């Protein structure tokens, strides 16, 4: 594709994403932060983000798809175990999960 077209795509995608952000800003001005609508939208955003994460781990489209599901789930369990073991330190959980996934891929993959 030509450079102009690609630039158009990049800027168009930026604007299209900003559209949702801006809509969020407009909506937030019109609703009560303690009201039911706000609580509902908050729940929707949590469900969306959780679904996105779940999809990334369980049904990945990235290179992770080549790693068996058992290894991925085992690494998540290890990460959570380390996280709670080390008094809810994010670094501990993330490190344990990432390293254990790499190790298991080397071992079994």
């Amino acid at each position, binding site marked *: 594709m030509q450079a102009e077209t690609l630039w158009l795509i990049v800027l168009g995608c930026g604007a*299209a994403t900003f559209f949702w952000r801006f809509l969020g800003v407009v909506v937030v001005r019109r609703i009560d932060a303690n009201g039911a609508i706000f609580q509902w939208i908050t729940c929707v955003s*949590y*469900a969306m983000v959780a679904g996105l994460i779940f999809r990334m781990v369980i049904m990945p489209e990235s290179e992770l798809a080549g790693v068996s599901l058992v290894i991925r789930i085992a690494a998540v369990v290890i990460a959570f175990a380390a996280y709670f073991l080390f008094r809810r330190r994010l670094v501990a959980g993330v490190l344990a999960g990432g390293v254990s996934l790499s190790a298991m891929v080397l071992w079994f993959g």
Partner: protein
Amino acid sequence: MRKAMLDALSLPAFILLFTMMGFGSLARGAGFGADMAAIATLFIWGLPGQLAMVELTTTGQGIVAIIFACSLANARFLPMVVSFVPAMSRGRSSLLGRSLDAQLLSINSWAMCLREFPNIDTRFRHRYYITFASCILMAAVMGTLFGYHGAVLLPAAVVLGLIFVSPLFFALVLAAVPGCAQRLSMVLGCATIPVANLLFPSIDLLITGLVGGSLGFAAGKFWKTFDAS
């Protein structure tokens, strides 16, 4: 603010550096220039949309289709902004100021701030957010450029571990979220996404949010009346 920079540099900045390296190399494969890839990270600032953009460009779709797909993949920013802005309490209140704040928002800063805000004085929340978000955005742009130029070649197993770190981080951050309705929504979101992905792959996240979130919200309401009675 120092806490924000430390929190950003301790982990999220590195995670973004690595995940955006993946985007950088994909963008190169699709024919984008290095400047385009960096601007894409800076302006779109939402990986699922960026990936949709690159994938559809590779397969040679039309501009409108690409922009539409990118927009759909990033539609989560609407509810994310709505749930985020009031949490800052004393942030900017003008339309322009809030739009700029919204432009900086990403899953990382959203999740991290909602987790950390209860421990931060309301006066400093906005500053914490801006500092944190700017730090990780810079790391992301750097990562995009590194990935584009193929700066580091790592063994495959290590790369897999690095890719895995990103969802893992979000999962751990969100594990600390309070509120039974919110927690239920997340569980229901996880339950909905496989079905939604199977039936409507292009709008699976929207459906997941609406179904999981609405059920979680309703259950939370029911729970409260149940508790009260």
